[in-house]
């Protein structure tokens, strides 16, 4: 199999479909034409920039620049965690907890994969490091934001029961154990579902990409399996760290429930 490169004309032809869709939107008065075109334009600019950055990074193969790119990605993922908290931990805390947990979990899993399983030379080769980290990070971030949100919501809703246990002499870990379990279950549900449904509903994006790029399907499957293991491991690790850190933040050293440390919420 040969890799089939696309030229600009191929892309322009594909892009015509967006123009057709915009035309339909005008004809049917859907009012979506500008949204479609702007979104498409954003995508073009963003992906071209990412392509340029990756090309430069790959050419440099520098541990410093690769590391900086990784930190930038983690910082951005932390912002996402922060944006997805409603009536939960204050922004700085969810950012701090999210970023730290992802740095440790996703970072650890990526480095482990690079040094023991994928083994590019050098191990920090950005062609492997950056896409791997990106995929692990994307899932880790979903798990962590779901986990933290579920923790703070559960603590609010279960407040009377939690304080009843504390008042009977339970420590904070015991009193919050049901909430902790629920939060981790919520955090891990997407990755569990993804593992059980993968291949049946749709081919995973990365596997599709490898197959299109000419890889043997079995080789692509092996890569996909490894990636799913890494993602599941990273997400579990990250969610556990983040939810535990969150639990310690919404309680204090005298085993009190400290909902006053959360931001205001309607619910």
């Amino acid at each position, binding site marked *: 199999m040969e890799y089939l490169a696309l030229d600009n004309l191929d892309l322009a032809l594909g892009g015509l479909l967006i123009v057709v869709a915009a035309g339909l939107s005008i004809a049917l008065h859907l009012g979506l034409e500008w949204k479609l075109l702007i979104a498409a334009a954003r995508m073009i600019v963003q992906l071209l920039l990412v392509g340029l950055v990756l090309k430069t990074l790959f050419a440099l193969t520098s541990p410093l620049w690769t590391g900086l790119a990784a930190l930038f990605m983690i910082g951005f993922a932390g912002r996402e965690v922060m944006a997805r908290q409603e009536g939960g931990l204050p922004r700085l805390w969810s950012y701090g907890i999210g970023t730290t947990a992802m740095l440790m979990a996703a970072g650890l899993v990526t480095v482990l994969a690079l040094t023991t399983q994928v083994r590019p030379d050098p191990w920090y080769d950005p062609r492997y490091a950056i896409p791997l980290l990106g995929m692990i990070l994307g899932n880790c971030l979903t798990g962590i934001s779901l986990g933290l949100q579920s923790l703070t919501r559960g603590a609010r809703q279960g407040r009377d029961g*939690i304080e*009843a246990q504390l008042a*009977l002499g339970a420590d904070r870990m015991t009193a919050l154990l049901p909430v902790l379990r629920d939060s981790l279950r919520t955090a891990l549900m997407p990755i569990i579902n993804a593992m059980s449904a993968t291949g049946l509903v749709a081919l995973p994006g990365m596997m599709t990409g490898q197959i299109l790029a000419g890889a043997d399907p079995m080789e692509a499957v092996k890569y996909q399996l490894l990636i799913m293991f890494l993602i599941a491991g990273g997400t579990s690790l990250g969610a556990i760290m983040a939810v535990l850190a969150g639990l310690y933040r919404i309680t204090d050293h005298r085993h*009190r429930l400290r909902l006053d440390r959360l931001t205001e919420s309607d619910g």
Partner: protein
Amino acid sequence: MLSLRKLCRPGLEPVDLDLEDGLCATLEGPSGAGKSLLLRAIADLDPTEGEVFLDDVARTSIPAPEWRQRVAYLPAVPGWWRLQAREHFADWGAASGLLARLGLDSALGERPVRLLSTGERLRLALVRLLLTEPRVLLLDEPTGPLDSDGVAAVESLLSERLAAGAAILIVTHDRAQADRLAGPRYAMAGGRLSRAA
């Protein structure tokens, strides 16, 4: 003896108070006056300033879970965290004696807590608390929704605890109950505690 020294928090002015063993102090006052805040503050459920001593041992020198086992707090609306009533007890069998004293059938344990009446839940929570044999009891209107038989049963249990050397602080709006319990009487208004006549 439980001693509060300048115990305060927002909404609660500094409180100095001694609760003697074997006495049941009563606390009255309009809602929102800070009665529950005071009980929660003693149980260390909210951050406070000042210090509390139990038999001259400072609260800060005792781990919080241990403190709350000795100085037990019963809120006016007790909390639940499992489905069935009996799941809230470490040993449901050990509760049967106290349940019977309060007129509760132990078959109640199989039922979901949310289907029990307010009075049943309150008595269950009281039994749950008494089973841990606390030194000090902080009770927020423990007889509010009970009928006169229920009130008498709770009061007789409390007087046994007093005889065994416990100290009790109880929030009540019932003057007759305060008379029966015959301990020192306090009143709370606007976050300030005073000795009542």
